[in-house]
C-alpha cells in the first residue's frame, strides 16, 4: 500500500469546536426540511446560509471496500501528511504487516496526530450526529452535505493510544537503504525534497523498476534536495502529490504573505495564520526572520500556539542529516540550522501549548499568531477567529493549500476581518514535472486522471497538465489498473559446485554457452540451481519409494544446435556432394532448397530446418549431416 492519507476536508461540514463557551455558535438555529420537518434540528445547524453538522468532527478514511486491508503486507509512507490515517488501518482492519517510513516522518507525523487528538479531545462534545447520514435523508440536505461521499464510513478521530500502537508498527528506514520484501522486490526510499524526511520510493526486482513519486519538490527549502538521478531507468513511474495550486508560485505567495502581514500590523491589526505545526511554517519563520527588521516589525510579537509547538521547533533543529546542504553545514559551526532559534532567543517568537496559561499573561497586540488547525474547525485558531473576526483591522492569511479557504470561513460569516489567500505549496508544478520526466525518462507514467487534463475551472490552460510521451496512463477512484509491464525474467543463482562443473563453449566472440542439468530450488522468491543429486544407489530392499526420492530422469540429451545456415554455401556443398538441379526459393521466413531430381525439399527457417523426402532415410541422413556441418553443437 502506497501511503495512507486522511481526507480531513470532511471536517469542513462540521461546526467549529470553540475553546470557550460561545453563545453565537451554541445559539444557532436548527435546520429543518423544506416541509418544516425538524427532526434534524439537533444535528444540523444553520449559519449564514450554510448548514453544518453539530457534532464531533469526523474524517473520511481511505477506501476499504476494494481490498481487504488485512491482506496488505507492507505500507510505504512518503511523508508525514500521508500517514494520518494509519491508526484506522493498523488498529481496525486486521492489518498485520509492516509500515516503512523515515525517522522524521514518524516523529513529525506523531506530532501532527498528537495535535489532532489533543485539539479534538480537549473540547469534548457529547453529541454525535448520525441521523443525517441516512442515505434517504442525505439526499434532502443542501450542498455540500448532499454531495459528501461515503459519509457512512466517516469516523471520529482516533485516540492517543491508537496512535502509539500504530506508530509502533512502523519500521524506520534511511534514504537509499535497500529493504528486501519477501525476496520478491526491493524497496528504497529516496529524498523527495518536500518535507523533513519525505521520500519517494523505488520498488524494484532484478529486471523491473517502479518508481513511486509522491509529494516532491525541486525548490530550495529546508529539506534535503530531491534525488532525481535514482529515478532513472524506471519501467513505470507512478506520479502523484503534485501541487494543488499550480497557478500559485510559492515565491510570489511568500511575498504576498509578508506584504499583507506588514500592512496589517502597521495599521494596528493582528494577523492570524492557520497552519500545521510543521512544514511550511519553518520556511515562513525563516522569511520573516529576514524580513521583520527591514520592514520595521521588530517589536511585533510572533506567537506559535500548538500542543506540539515546542517539540516541532526543537525537532526541526535536530534532524540535521535530513536537511538541505546549507542547513547541514550550519550544524558544524555549530549553529542551529533554522533561524527560528534566534527568534525564540530574542523573544520575538514565543510558543505556547495553548491559549490558556502563560499565553494570556504575555499576550500583546498587535501581534502575529501561527496556530492550527488550518480547517478552522478545531484548535486554538477557532478562538482567534471569534476574537478578531469582528474587526476589519485584523487579517487571516491562509497558507496551507489543503482546505478551501472560503469553505473554512463559512461558519464565521459575517466576518469583518480581512482574508488573504496565499497558498504555499512547494510540490512539483507541471513545468517542473515535464522537466523531471525529460530528465528521468521513464517508459511509462501512471498518474491520477486529474493531472491529465486542464483544471475544470481553466479548461484552456493546457499548460496545466502532464505532457509526456507516451501519454500518461491515468486512473480514477476505485479503478483497477494493470501496470504496463510483464515480469519476464527471474534471476537464478547457481551454486558454486554446479558452476564449477559447467563447460562453456564459445559460440560467438564473447558469448559462451553451456548446458546445465540441475535442480531448481525456490524458496522465498529466491531461485537457486543446485547440483542434481547423484543417482540413487540401488538399495535392493523393498523400501517404499517416497515421492521426495523421485529423481528427475536424466536422459542423455541430444546436443543443442546453434548457428545459421548460409544458403549459398549450403547449395555449393550439396552440389559438391553430387546433387544437381537445385533450386532455391525465398519464403517469408527463410528459404526452401528444392532438390528436384531427388524430389526432396529442405525448408530452412530461422529456428528450424526440415528435410522432407519420401521414404528415403539414407538420403535424409545424408542431408541431415550436411546441414549439421553448418551448425555448432554443444
Amino acid at each position, binding site marked *: 500500500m502506497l501511503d495512507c492519507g486522511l481526507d480531513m476536508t470532511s471536517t469542513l461540514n462540521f461546526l467549529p469546536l470553540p475553546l470557550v463557551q460561545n453563545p453565537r455558535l451554541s445559539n444557532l438555529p436548527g435546520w429543518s426540511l423544506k416541509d418544516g420537518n425538524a427532526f434534524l434540528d439537533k444535528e444540523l445547524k444553520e449559519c449564514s446560509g450554510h448548514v453544518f453538522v453539530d457534532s464531533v468532527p469526523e474524517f473520511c478514511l481511505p477506501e476499504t471496500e476494494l481490498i481487504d486491508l488485512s491482506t496488505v503486507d507492507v505500507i510505504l509512507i512518503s511523508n508525514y501528511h500521508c500517514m494520518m490515517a494509519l491508526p484506522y488501518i493498523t488498529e481496525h482492519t486486521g492489518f498485520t504487516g509492516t509500515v516503512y517510513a523515515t525517522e522524521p516522518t514518524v516523529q513529525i507525523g506523531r506530532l501532527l496526530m498528537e495535535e489532532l487528538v489533543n485539539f479534538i479531545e480537549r473540547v469534548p462534545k457529547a453529541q454525535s450526529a448520525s441521523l443525517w447520514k441516512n442515505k434517504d435523508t442525505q439526499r434532502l440536505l443542501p450542498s455540500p452535505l448532499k454531495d459528501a461521499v461515503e459519509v457512512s464510513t466517516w469516523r471520529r478521530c482516533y485516540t492517543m493510544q491508537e496512535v502509539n500502537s500504530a506508530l509502533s508498527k512502523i519500521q524506520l528506514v534511511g534514504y537509499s537503504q535497500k529493504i528486501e520484501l519477501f525476496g520478491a522486490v526491493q524497496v528504497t526510499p529516496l529524498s523527495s525534497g518536500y518535507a523533513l524526511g519525505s521520500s519517494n520510493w523505488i520498488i524494484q526486482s532484478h529486471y523491473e523498476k517502479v518508481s513511486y513519486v509522491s509529494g516532491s519538490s525541486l525548490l530550495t527549502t529546508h529539506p534535503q534536495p530531491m534525488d532525481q538521478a535514482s529515478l532513472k531507468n524506471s519501467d513505470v513511474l507512478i506520479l502523484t502529490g503534485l501541487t494543488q495550486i499550480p*497557478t*500559485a*508560485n510559492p515565491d*510570489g*505567495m*511568500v*511575498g*504576498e504573505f*509578508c*506584504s*499583507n502581514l*506588514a*500592512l496589517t500590523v*502597521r495599521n*494596528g491589526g493582528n494577523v492570524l495564520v492557520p497552519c500545521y505545526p510543521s512544514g511550511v511554517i519553518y520556511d515562513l519563520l525563516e*522569511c520573516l526572520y*529576514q*524580513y521583520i527588521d*527591514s*520592514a520595521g516589525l521588530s*517589536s511585533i510579537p510572533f506567537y506559535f500556539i500548538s500542543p506540539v509547538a515546542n517539540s516541532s521547533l526543537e525537532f526541526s533543529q535536530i534532524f540535521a542529516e535530513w536537511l538541505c546542504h546549507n542547513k547541514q553545514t550550519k550544524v558544524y559551526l555549530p549553529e542551529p540550522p533554522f533561524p527560528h532559534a534566534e527568534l525564540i532567543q530574542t523573544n520575538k517568537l514565543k510558543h505556547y501549548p495553548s491559549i490558556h496559561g502563560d499565553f494570556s499573561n504575555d499576550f*500583546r*497586540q*498587535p501581534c502575529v499568531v501561527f496556530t492550527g488547525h488550518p480547517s478552522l474547525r478545531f484548535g486554538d485558531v477557532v478562538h482567534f477567529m471569534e476574537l478578531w473576526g469582528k474587526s476589519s483591522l485584523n487579517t487571516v492569511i491562509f497558507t496551507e493549500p489543503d482546505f478551501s479557504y472560503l469553505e473554512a470561513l463559512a461558519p464565521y460569516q459575517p466576518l469583518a476581518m480581512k482574508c488573504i489567500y*496565499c497558498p504555499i505549496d512547494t510540490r512539483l508544478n507541471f513545468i517542473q514535472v515535464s522537466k523531471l520526466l525529460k530528465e528521468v525518462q521513464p517508459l511509462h507514467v501512471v498518474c491520477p486522471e486529474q493531472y491529465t487534463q486542464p483544471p475544470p475551472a*481553466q479548461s*484552456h*490552460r*493546457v*499548460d496545466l497538465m502532464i505532457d509526456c510521451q507516451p501519454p500518461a496512463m491515468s486512473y480514477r477512484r476505485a479503478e483497477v489498473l494493470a501496470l504496463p509491464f510483464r515480469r519476464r525474467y527471474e534471476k537464478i543463482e547457481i551454486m558454486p559446485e554446479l558452476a564449477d562443473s559447467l563447460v562453456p563453449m564459445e559460440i560467438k566472440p564473447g558469448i559462451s554457452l553451456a548446458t546445465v542439468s540441475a535442480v531448481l530450488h525456490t524458496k522465498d522468491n529466491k531461485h537457486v540451481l543446485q547440483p542434481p543429486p547423484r543417482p540413487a544407489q540401488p538399495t535392493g530392499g523393498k523400501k517404499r519409494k517416497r515421492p521426495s526420492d523421485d529423481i528427475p530422469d536424466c536422459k542423455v540429451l541430444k546436443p543443442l544446435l546453434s548457428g545459421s545456415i548460409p544458403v549459398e554455401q549450403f547449395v555449393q556443398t550439396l552440389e559438391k556432394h553430387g546433387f544437381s538441379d537445385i533450386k532455391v526459393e525465398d519464403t517469408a521466413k527463410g528459404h526452401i532448397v528444392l532438390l528436384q531430381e531427388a524430389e526432396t525439399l529442405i525448408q530452412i527457417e530461422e529456428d528450424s530446418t526440415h528435410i522432407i523426402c519420401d521414404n528415403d532415410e539414407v538420403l535424409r541422413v545424408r542431408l541431415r549431416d550436411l546441414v549439421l556441418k553448418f551448425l555448432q553443437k554443444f
Partner: protein
Amino acid sequence: MDPECSRLLPALCAVLVDPRQPVADDTCLEKLLDWFKTVTEAGPSLLLLQENPCLVELLFRVLKAHDPRPRVLSFSLRLAGLFAAQEDCFQYLQVTPSSSVSQQGELLPMLFGESGPLGGAAWTAPTVRSGWLQGLRSLAQHPGALRFLADCGAVDTIFSLQGDSSLFVASAAGQLLVHILALAMRGPAEGHPSPQGCDWPACAQKIVCHVEDSLRSTATLQVTQALNVLTTTFGHCHSPWTQGLWVRLSPLVACLLEKDPIPASHSLVDLLLSVARSPVGSSDCGLWETLAQTLSHLSPTQAGPLALGILKLQDCPQALKTQAFGVLLQPLACVLKAAAQAPGPPGFPEGATGDSITVDTFLSSKSACVGLLCQALAHLELLQLLPQRPSPWPQAPLLRAAVAILRFCHGSAAPTSDVGGHLCAVLAGCVRVQRAALDFLGTLSQGTGPQELVTQVFAVLLEYLTSPDSSPMVLKKAFQATLRWLLGSPKAPSCCDLDPHTQLFLGELLPVLRKRLCSPCWEARDSGLEFLTQVTRHWGEVPELTGQLLRDPESYVRASAVTATGQLSSWGLYATPTGPEHPEVQQESLFTELLHILSTDSEGFPRRAVMHVFTQWLKDGHADVAEDLEQFVARVLQAASQDLDWEVRAQGLELALVFLEQLLGQPGSRCPYAVALPEAAPPATLAQVLQALCRVQLFEFALRALFDCDRPVAQKSCDLLLFLKAKATPCGGPQEAGASPDVVSVEAALQRWQAGEQGQPLGELEPEAVMAVLRSMDLEGLRGMLAKSSDHMEKSPQSLLQDMLATVGVLGENEADCY
C-alpha cells in the same frame, strides 16, 4: 614636432624594438598612434620623417626582427600607413634605405607585400592582420597607393581576410575593400560609368568581379561577405557611380531571392535598406519591386526588420508601405484572431490578417512564437514614435492585441480556438513577451482609444500589478506602463474629470502600491517607489494650484483648498508661490493666509476648515506651530472668539482643549495596547500651565463661550472648564474666593456677560483669580442645565398637563360656539 619629443623619440623606438624590454601595454601604443595621427594631419610630414630617422629605423628593425612582437608589429604597420597617407611620404617610404640596417630595400612593399609579415609566423596573431588592414586603410588615399596595392597583390589578401576567424579583421577587410573601391572610382569615373564596367579602373573592376563571384557562390558565408561589402558601399558612397554599380549587381541580388531558403537573409535586408536609403533608391523603381518581393519571400521573423526599415524610409510608394506595415501587424493580427471569442470589432487593415505562414511560425515552437511576438512588439513600439508612422494608425486593434497578449501571458485569457489554446500554453508566464508587451502598451498610451479598451488596459495593468507571480522586471514594466497611461490617459473633450473606470483603477491601485512597498522583494519595493516618485514629480504643481484655490470665488472650494493646503503643509509638501528663495517665510505666510481667511472670509465653510486645520496642526506638532505655540494659540483663539459662526467658536474650544491636554501632558485618547512612548518633556506644573493659559487668554475665550447664545458652544466650554477644574482642584491651595479684589470684578463682568452684555473685556487675569472664579461657579449645575435640550420645557410633564388643560378649554369654547 616638439623638440623635446624629437629628443625622446629615438630612445622610445629603441625600446620598442628591443625584445628584452617589456612592451608597453596596448593603450600606450594606441595613444602614441593617436599622437602621430594628430601630427601627420597637422601638415606635411615628410620633413618630420627625415628629421627623425629613428621612425623609419624602427620600421626596418621591426621587420628584420626574428620574432617580432605582434603588438609592436601591428603598431609599426599602422604607423607606416599613417605616414604613407601623404603622397610625398609614401614616395619617401617606398625608396628610403635604412641608415643602419645592413639590408636595404623598399620599406612599404616589405611591410605590406608578400615578403612582409604576411607570410611570417606573426601573421597568425589577429592584431597583426588587423594592423596590416588598418595600415593599408590609412595608406590608401592617393592614386599612387592604388598602384601600390595592385603591384603588391594586397587586394587578393584582403579578399581572403574577409573570411577571417577574427570578426574585427573580417569586418575591417570588408570596409577596406569599400574604401579601395571608392578610391579607385574617385578619379576617372566621377561621372556615370557604364554598368558593364569596361571603363572601370582595373582595381575597381577586380573588386566588383569578386563581389559578383561571391554573390553567385553557393556558400552562404561568401554571399554574406559580398552583401556586407555592398551594404557599406551604398551606406557610405553616394557618388553617381554607385548607380552603375547597382544596375550591374541588382540582377544578381534578385537571383538570391529565388533561392529557397534565401541565403544570408539578414545581410540581404541590410543591403536592400542601405540601397533604398541611398540616392540610388530614389531613382530606381525596380528597387521597390525587389523590396516588395523580398518582403513576401522572407519568413515572418526575417521580414520584420525589413518592414520596419521600409516604413522608416522617407519616400517610398504607399503600396509598399502598406505591405510592410501588414508584415509587422501580422503576428498581432494572429493573436487577435486567436483570442477572439466571437466576431468582434474591426481589426487591422487589409493585408494584416494573420496569414498561414505566421500561424505556422506561431505553432512551430515556443521559441519561434516568442521571438516573433517580441520582435513585432519592439518594431511597432519604435514605429509608433516616428513622425512618418503609417496613417491611419490602428490604435484600437493594437491596444486590443497588446491586452490579449498580456492576458495570454497571465493565463487569464480563455480562447476557444486551437491556436488560442496553443498560444495560451506557450505564453503563460513568459517573462520576455510580458516585458515587450508592457513596453508596447506603455507607448500606446500616447494615442487615444475607445473607452472600453482603456478600461481593459487598466484592468490588465492592475492584474499585473496585483499578481504575486509578476516577476520583478515585469512588475517594473507594469508600473512604468501604468504611469504612462495615468499621465497620458486620454480624456474625452466633454469631460474634464477622470472617468469612473480610471477612478476605480486609482482606488484599486493605492492598496496595491501599499502592498508592493511592503514587499519582501527589494525589486518590488524599488519599482513601487520609482512609480511613486514619478507620479509625485508630475504632481509637483498640485500644491501651487491648491494655494491659488484658496482665493476661489466659491466658498466650498475655498474650504476644501484650506483643508488640502493644511494637509500638504503638514507633510511638508506645500510650497507657496513666493519662490524657493525664502523658504522660511512660506509656512508663516500660509499660517497668515489661513488666519486671514479665518478673520475675513464672509462664508462659514472656509473659516470652519481653517479651524480644523489649525487644530490638526496643533495635534500633529506642526513644525511652525511648535515654534511659538502660545502665540499661535492666542492669535487663533482671538480670531475665533469674534466669529459669528458657532461651529467656528466650538472648534476654537476643541483647539483650546488640545492645547490644554498638551500642556498637562495627557493625550486625549491612547490605544490601550500601544506601548507608551517616552515623554518628550515632563509635564509642566499646574501653576505654569495656568500662567500659560492666561497668557493666551484661553480663560477669557472659554468664559465668554460659557455664556454663548449657542448651546453646543456653551456645553463644550463648560466641559473644558470642568476638566480644568478637576485637574486643578487637588493641587490648588486653600485660597479664599473672596480674598482677591480681581475676583469681584471678574464675577461682575461675568454676570454682565450672562445678561447679554458681552462687550466688556475681562482684562488681565491672574491664575489664582481664575481658579477662584472656577471654584465659585456652579459649573456642574450649568452643565446639567445645558444638557437639557431646548424643547425640554415642551417635553416636561408640566407642559403636558398644561397642554391637556388648554385643549379642554378649547373644547369648551368650541362647545359654546356650537350653541
